[in-house]
């Protein structure tokens, strides 16, 4: 009986799925866009803030306009086909392949996370899909864009991001605003290790004394020992190249132990720029530094933020969200510019044109965007970009 009910249910769900599928297949004028990113697994929390809401917002806005305008003079609505890659690169690869071959989508939004992006770049290349990466940060971008014709990067490279906080700290040291004892920790993951390595070199060059340095596993359950050890080393700066759960844990523990009041610079990385960070810590994080940034006073950002909240019910983050949205604007503008769904032509168009985005005007140079925020600071409940690579307008002064 129970099994029967279950199989009926499964059958019903499959039928419903098939119905949606055939309905969309019939309407031939829709543009089918695939997306494969985590909905479960360790990176799901980050993707739920930065990735999925922007896909939803963009699709909603495009379809509200009637769709993307093609050469036939008609607007074609977009249809998003989503897969959960369960934060597993093997699944990501499989999902991208399935999107291209069995779903036959017209374009694919690159996956979430550096590892997933690097794993699927060869697949995008082989299948001939342009890949406008956002949440993929590595120093290998030059090598990758040289090898893969249709792969683009928008959020920056590792070394400039590490330089963001390091240069800022060096300037403050030169002005006598901060001492030179540095405690530095990082999550033992590709992102954390790369950033920490890049930052260590710069900090040492600038004459900082690294009094405590360690890495910890991504699954760490209790960060108390790390904060205690750092506190024992009596640092003037605390820099953590951390991931979302530990970003929260390190901050809370630093507040409880008093470390946050003892240091002049307190920095954490991914998730620092999430609205949830401010909601959790309130005024307690005024002055805290984090990776990324935006210009929260820029009218384009304000408009984007309001639309994001109206459509998805959530606030965008203060770093990658707007860039993620921009990457979709770029895709839309490139398709309209070409006027057909010819992927090779769209790739060429991406390389040779400028685009109007919420992050300002974008022109790909060597398939990369080389203007981006590197370090930001919480100031009265908003996260301001205080350091950037290239020329970003509206850089705020650290407080």
């Amino acid at each position, binding site marked *: 009986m*129970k099994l029967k009910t279950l199989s009926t249910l499964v059958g019903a769900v499959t039928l419903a799925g098939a119905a949606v599928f055939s309905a969309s297949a019939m309407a031939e004028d829709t543009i089918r866009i695939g997306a494969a990113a*985590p*909905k*479960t*697994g360790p990176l*799901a*929390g*980050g*993707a*739920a*803030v930065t990735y*999925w809401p922007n896909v939803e917002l963009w699709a909603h806005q495009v379809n509200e306009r009637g769709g993307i305008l093609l050469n036939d003079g008609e607007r074609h609505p977009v249809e998003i086909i989503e897969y959960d890659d369960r934060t597993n690169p093997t699944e990501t690869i499989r999902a991208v392949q399935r999107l291209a071959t069995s779903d036959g989508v017209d374009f694919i939004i690159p996956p979430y996370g550096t590892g997933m992006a690097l794993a699927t770049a060869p697949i995008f290349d082989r299948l001939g899909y342009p890949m406008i990466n956002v949440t993929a940060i590595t120093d290998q971008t030059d090598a990758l864009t040289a090898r893969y014709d249709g792969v683009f990067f928008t959020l920056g490279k590792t070394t400039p991001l590490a330089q963001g906080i390091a240069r800022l700290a060096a300037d403050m040291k030169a002005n006598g605003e901060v001492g030179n004892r540095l405690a530095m*920790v990082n999550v*033992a993951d590709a992102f954390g290790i790369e950033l920490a390595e890049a930052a260590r070199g710069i900090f040492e060059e600038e004459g900082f004394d690294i009094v405590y340095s*360690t*890495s*910890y*596993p991504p*699954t*760490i*359950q*209790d*960060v*108390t*020992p*790390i904060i*205690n*050890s750092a506190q024992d080393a009596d640092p003037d700066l605390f820099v953590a190249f951390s991931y*979302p*759960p530990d970003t*929260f*844990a390190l901050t*809370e*523990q630093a*507040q*409880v*132990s*008093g470390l946050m009041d003892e240091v002049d610079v307190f920095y954490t990385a991914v*998730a620092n720029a*999430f609205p*949830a960070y401010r909601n*959790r*810590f*309130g005024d307690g994080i005024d002055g805290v530094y984090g990776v990324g940034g935006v210009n929260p006073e820029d009218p384009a950002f304000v408009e984007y933020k309001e639309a994001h909240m109206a459509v998805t019910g*959530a606030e965008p983050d203060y770093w990658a969200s707007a860039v993620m949205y921009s990457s979709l604007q770029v895709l839309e503008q490139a398709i309209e510019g070409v006027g057909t769904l010819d992927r090779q032509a769209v790739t060429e168009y991406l390389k040779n044109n400028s685009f109007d985005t919420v992050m300002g005007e974008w022109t790909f140079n060597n398939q990369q965007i080389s203007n981006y925020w590197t370090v930001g600071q919480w100031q009265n409940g908003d996260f301001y970009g205080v350091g950037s690579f290239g020329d970003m307008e509206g850089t705020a002064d650290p407080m």
Partner: protein
Amino acid sequence: MQMLITGIFLGGVYAIIAVGLSLQYGVSRIMNLAVGEMLVAGAFAAFWFSTAQSLNPYLSLLVVIPLAFGANWLIYRYLLLPLVRRAKTRGQLEVDSILVTFGLSFTLVGIFLWAFGGEFFNYSFLSVPVEIFDSRYGQNRVLAFVIAFVVCAGLWIWLNHTRSGLSMRAISVDTRAASLVAIDVEKSSNFAFALGGAIAATGGMVLSTFLTFDASIGIVFTLKALVIVIMGGVGDIRGAIVAALVLGITETVVARLIDPGLTLAAAYVLFLLILLFRPQGLFGRAQT
């Protein structure tokens, strides 16, 4: 001293994660791989109480405990009891229950995702320092330890000093013999499973006051609970508690004196050593 206290606090957290499973596995013979999702359910309830209702998250226990008890009672009664009745050997029951609860854990993750979404959840509660022996600790952690202590002590007293507790222990020693001395094994197993689930949900509620969680984090807790239950010895609540404390202290000491990167390695080395030299676990009885 600071190290020891931090370690004991962490051990307390581990204990409350693990004793629920210890009860479920020891008495009801169900290797419940969905125990982590029970914890997450408790955490979500506390989150909802704290943020949507602006109430003290601990108040959610008034709802969480009966609800989790009821839900787990139903899960055992209608999902697992048929397996128990069908199983010819204990090994078969273990395989069957692992498969069913593994499926259940996916279902629950799906429900959490649908209900709450996939982002990170946390809220601030009693995140203020308290000084113990010249070191500062978060009050939320101290309170979590107190709750863990009360739960563990309560369980221990119940199991060792009451008649119904005695029958639980009898079942965990030998199911067939227990039924021969007029213990209603099915009823008691059902109760133990439901209680284990309620404890897990309580643990999740307590953890949520200082831990950032999301819909799919349950598996992390399940793995930790499994390691602790196996280390402690199947079916012995003392074993789970001692193993949890040992694990908490070891991880803290290693993180503090050697390297935080080695906590995981230290935990599994400990696990391996215990399996090598006491395969039945710290307090477990040798299999006959």
